[in-house]
Each structure stands twice: as structure tokens, then as C-alpha cells.
């Protein structure tokens, strides 16, 4: 029997931003259906990792590779990665005045469906899907009518990210510091949203500075990222250990 291909396989990845090397030989393997957490101090390269997986311009891969479902992502446009099932929940979701959330989501889902050769959703089908997803996640329909993230509270912005994730139904979700700026109630709501999307077909990469999000979303594996490399990997208990001891042993002070 052939060996099962992991959802995400990163090998000896070197990434430079603006000529400065941020990731310096990172290795990571995430199996299908698994939730992995990447923890690390500020400036360790956590956000760089999330952006480079999603294909942001200006993040230059100088060595190694990122393989998603057996396919090398190097040079692939961000929208193509999205169509192939990669989703990045932003640490700072962008405000887009004058573009309604529904318009944005409809353009996104239909672009992805077109790419996959599936028929586009008409207005009624789309509305039905939106109603269902907002209901599942406990999001007010009012949020859909407003311009993308404009005037949203920190919690609303993060919930909007989870809503987008639910609608686009990715196979690999990367959550970049989704817990930052959230109070405990907002954190619980967002975590419940992520948990409701748990599935044997979906892998999730949670990038975080703090352990607290992992109280609500229990990972299969925890990795410590510092100085541009994975320094240590372990089970969920590693997060608790980090919470106590900080990142000092990895050569950087806890922020």
C-alpha cells in the first residue's frame, strides 16, 4: 500500500522578506485531519510562515519547498492556492470600504467554484448557504450587509474570518494569531467556530503566541518556532510547559 501523502509537508524552508532571512530551514509535516499549533516568541517567523503558505508577494523562498497534497506550491498565485483549498485567517483582517461582505463572499466562492469547474451559485443558493453558515456560527446577518470589516470590533473581524472559512470550506486552514486582541468571550466564540469546522478531511495550523487559545482548540501536535526554525515538537502538554517557562530556553526572551 502506498504511503499516505500528508496534507502539508514543509522541507528545509528558507524565506527572505526584503532581503532579510526570516525562515532558516523550517521543517513541518501536518497529516490530514490533524490540528497543529505553532507557538513562538515575537519575531520568530510565525506570520512569515502563514503568509508564505498563502502565497503573499514579497516573501521569497530562497531554499526548500512547501508541498501541499503532494504539489509544490512555489510560484503559485494566492487565488489558485485558495481554489485548491488553502485558507489563511488573517491576524489583522483588512477593511474594504464600499464592498459589502456578501458581495465579497459571493465573488470569492464563485471564483473558487469556477476554478474547480463547478457551477456558480446563484443569488438564492448563495443566500441559503450564508443563512445556514451564519446560523451555525451564531453570527448576525447584519454583519453580512456591512462593508468588509469596516467598523467591525476586533471580535467581529475574527468571527468574520471564521465565517469566510466556513463558507469557502478549505482543506488546509491556517489561523494566524486569531486569538490576538480578543477578550475571553470572543475567544470562546471563535474557538467554538473553529471546532465546529473540525473534520477528518481538514487540517488546521494554529499560529499563536499564547497558550490560552489551545485551552479551547486542542491540538494534536505543538511546535515551537524560534529563530526561523522548529526547535521542538510535542503533544498538547508542550503548550502548557511553554506557558510556564516562556521561550527563554529557545534563545529569545518571552514577550
Amino acid at each position: 500500500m502506498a504511503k499516505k501523502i500528508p496534507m502539508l509537508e514543509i522541507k528545509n524552508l528558507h524565506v527572505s522578506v526584503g532581503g532579510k532571512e526570516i525562515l532558516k530551514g523550517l521543517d513541518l509535516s501536518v497529516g490530514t485531519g490533524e490540528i497543529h499549533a505553532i507557538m513562538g516568541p515575537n519575531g520568530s517567523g510565525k506570520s512569515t510562515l502563514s503568509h508564505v503558505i498563502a502565497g503573499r508577494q514579497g516573501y521569497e523562498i530562497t531554499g526548500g519547498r512547501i508541498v501541499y497534497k503532494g504539489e509544490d506550491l512555489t510560484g503559485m498565485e494566492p487565488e489558485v492556492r485558495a481554489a485548491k483549498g488553502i485558507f489563511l485567517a488573517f491576524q489583522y483582517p483588512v477593511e474594504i470600504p464600499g464592498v459589502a461582505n456578501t458581495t465579497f463572499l459571493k465573488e470569492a466562492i464563485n471564483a473558487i467554484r469556477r476554478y474547480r469547474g463547478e457551477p456558480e451559485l446563484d443569488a438564492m443558493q448563495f443566500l441559503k448557504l450564508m443563512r445556514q453558515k451564519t446560523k451555525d456560527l451564531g453570527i448576525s446577518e447584519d454583519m453580512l450587509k456591512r462593508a468588509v470589516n469596516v467598523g467591525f470590533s476586533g471580535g467581529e473581524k475574527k468571527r468574520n474570518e471564521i465565517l469566510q472559512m466556513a463558507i469557502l470550506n478549505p482543506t488546509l486552514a491556517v489561523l494566524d494569531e486569531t486569538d490576538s486582541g480578543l477578550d475571553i468571550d470572543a475567544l470562546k466564540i471563535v474557538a467554538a467556530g473553529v471546532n465546529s469546522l473540525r473534520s477528518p478531511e481538514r487540517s488546521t495550523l494554529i499560529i499563536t503566541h499564547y497558550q490560552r487559545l489551545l485551552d479551547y482548540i486542542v491540538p494534536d501536535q505543538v511546535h515551537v518556532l524560534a529563530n526561523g526554525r522548529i526547535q521542538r515538537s510535542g503533544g498538547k502538554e508542550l503548550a502548557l510547559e511553554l506557558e510556564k517557562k516562556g521561550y527563554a530556553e529557545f534563545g529569545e526572551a518571552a514577550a
Partner: protein
Amino acid sequence: MTNLSTTEQPFVAAFDAARPGLPGAGLGWLAALRDTGIARFKALGLPTPKLEAWKYTRLRPLEDTRYRPVTDADGRATVDLVPSILAAGKDRPRLVFVNGRLNEQLSNRRGLPTGVRVQCLRDALAADAGWVEKHLAGIGKADSQSLLALNTAMMDSGLVFRVERGVVVEQPIEAVFIGGLTAHPVAYFPRNLIVIEDGAQATLVTHHAGAGVGAYLANAVTEVEVGRGAKLRHYRVQAESRDATHLTTTHVRVGRDASYENFTLAIGGRLSRNEISVRMEGEGGHCSVNGAYLMRGREHCDNTTLIEHLVPRTTCREVFKGVLDDESRAVFQGRIVVHKDAQKTDGHQLCKALLLSTGAEIDAKPELEIYADDVKCSHGATTGQLDETALFYLRSRGVPEALARNLLVQSFLGEALDEITSDEVRQALTDKIVHALPAVCYLAEEWKTG
């Protein structure tokens, strides 16, 4: 008198030749007005970049193209489809001008409320010359504007729009000006007269569209009077063809407790200049002068505005936003003058541009000139590029780059369109922008490799 150049001489010669056939030829006062106009034009010559007000806009099409004045025959050119801004436009009251001439067959006056007059200048002169005499050239009389002087001499048609005292018109009324349907370059000189009498209210949409491929020059002057307590919403869409030159000079007088709202959307034209002067003459008056533009290729779009506060307690608001692609160029010259007696003036001006290519350029000159000491005035001007983070955000959700760019352009211009108080017109202009954006290719094959 200056020595006229080879660029100016043809206009003077054209005036001499066209004169007998111009509207109101038998009217002494009008003949005198035309004489004054041509004399001023001869004295001033065409504007050149040597003039401060024309520093950034050169009338190159007038140098490299020889235009002939339009004739009545040009006005009978076949039009397959009249482009309308408003939904079900052909069933609503509208006037249609073809190559600068009113076309009765395409126009529709049914459903016009009583107390509203919509006609072309020639008909207005024939029907009520006394009324026209009272208003024409009374509002727009800036001696330094040579294009206005040339129009005063040559005025050959135009829209006369009058709403009588106290009449409130709910529905927007549209005037469509179609150009580009001649084999040789033509020039026309519309003179529009808009009088909203005391307590009256109306919404007027003028739509300037290029239907053919011919080059043409429109040198228009619009005079607007908004009476005491009256309200005018005046929207303009400039969707001229790429060889068109669209020069328009507007003069507005806003009376006591009156309100004037102007919005110009420019999405096409080789060279355009939208020059507006508003005089706030009565206490409690408000004006807003706004615009959005979307230029590409080598198009040039100039918005030059002057708002003068002459009496206490008047307000103004000015928002211009534009997007420039390729090697297009825009000019914004916005001047707000608060005169000595205009205490408690409240003025706000904003000018923002988005440059989509390194070859695009904007020259912005916001100016506040304040002679009163108890006023509230602000202004701001910014120029930037598409937000790369926003672009990545949209693309990371699967939106192809070309569509993501369009959405961000739409988003950027939306802030200006939000100033439009008519829901119907705001929606219509938003749709117009969406259609003017580059087409997005949805074929998976093409954007996989792109």
C-alpha cells in the same frame, strides 16, 4: 489685442461664417452678447499653460485637430441606441442631443410636471426671448475665461431647464448628449441655462456619451441659478469617446437657504476639463461639489473648482476621488475663498487619487483663501497606490487578481459616490463604474497560467 495663432484663427473664422445661422440671429441683445464674446476671445486667446489656471492642462487636441462647427444635418445622424443612465430612461422625460443638436424624435417630454420647462436654447429663444435675456450671461460672466467667451460668441444649442417657483420634481430628469457620429472632427458650443426658482426642487442628470469614433470638441457653458430655499441636484456623467475633447465651464449662484449638489463622474475622453465656480450669495446656503474619475490610456482629466463664500453662515463640501491607470493624467485645482463678511463659513475639501501605474500622474492644488476670522475650514489631499495587503486579502480568498483590483478601485471611488444623495443616481453611477472597469477573464485555463 493679442495676435491670434493658427490655432485660434479658425474659431474666429468659423464664428463669422456661422453667425447668420446661430440661434436668435435676429435678436439685438444677443448679437451684442456674441460681439462681446468674440472680442473677449480675440483679446484673451486660447488658454495656455503659461496661465496659472491652465498650468497643468494643455489644449493639445485644439492644436493638432481642425474642427468644423456642427450643422443641423450632423444632428440628424442615426443613433441606434440612446445610452441612458437612468433605468427605463426612454420612458422617462429626457432630452437627447445628437452631435450638439436637439433630436426631437429621441426626446420625450411626456410625464413632465407642470411648471417644468425642458427645451433647447433655440426653442427657448423662439418661445420666450425675454426670459432668456434676463438670465443668459448673467450668471457666468467671468471676463478672464476665454473658453466662456468663445462659447458666448458661438453658442449654438444647449439645454434650458427651468423649474418654476415652489414646484418640486421628485423624479430625476435626464439630458443625453451623444457625440462622435461625424466623419470629420466637429466642434459644438452648448450653452445650458438652469434656473431653479425660489422654493423649487429638482434633480438633473446630464449624460455625455461618445457613440462613434469621430473626434469632437464640446466647449460647453452651464449657468445655474438656485433661488431662495430651492434645491438642485446636478449630476454629470462624462463617458466621452477616446478622441473627444470635453471642456465645460459651469457658473452657479446659490441663494439664501438654497442647496446645490454637483457630482461629476468622468470615465472617458481624451481631454476633459470640468471647471466649476460656485458663488454662495445667500445666508444659510449649502453647496457640495464632488466628483470621481477613472482614466486610462493617455486620457487627461482636469477638475478645477472655485467656491466663493460671500455672506455669513454658508457651507460647502467638496470630495474628489480618482483612479489613474496607464499614462493617464489628472489635475485637481480646488479653491475655496471665504470673503471678509462670510463669518461662520463651514467648508471641507478632500482630494484623493489612486495611481495604478508608474506612468500615471496627478497634479493636485488644494487652496483655501480665508479673509474672515470665525470660520471652520479644512482640506486634505492624498495620492497612493493600491493597498497590497488588501489585494492579498482578496486573492487569498480565491478572488482573481484582476477582479480583486477592480473591487478595490470600486471601493476607493465609493467614498466619493457616497456623497450623492439620490439613491437611484448613486446606484446608476456605481454600475457605470463597474462596467467601465477592465473586463475580468474567468476562464480557469487563462488565470491558471497567468
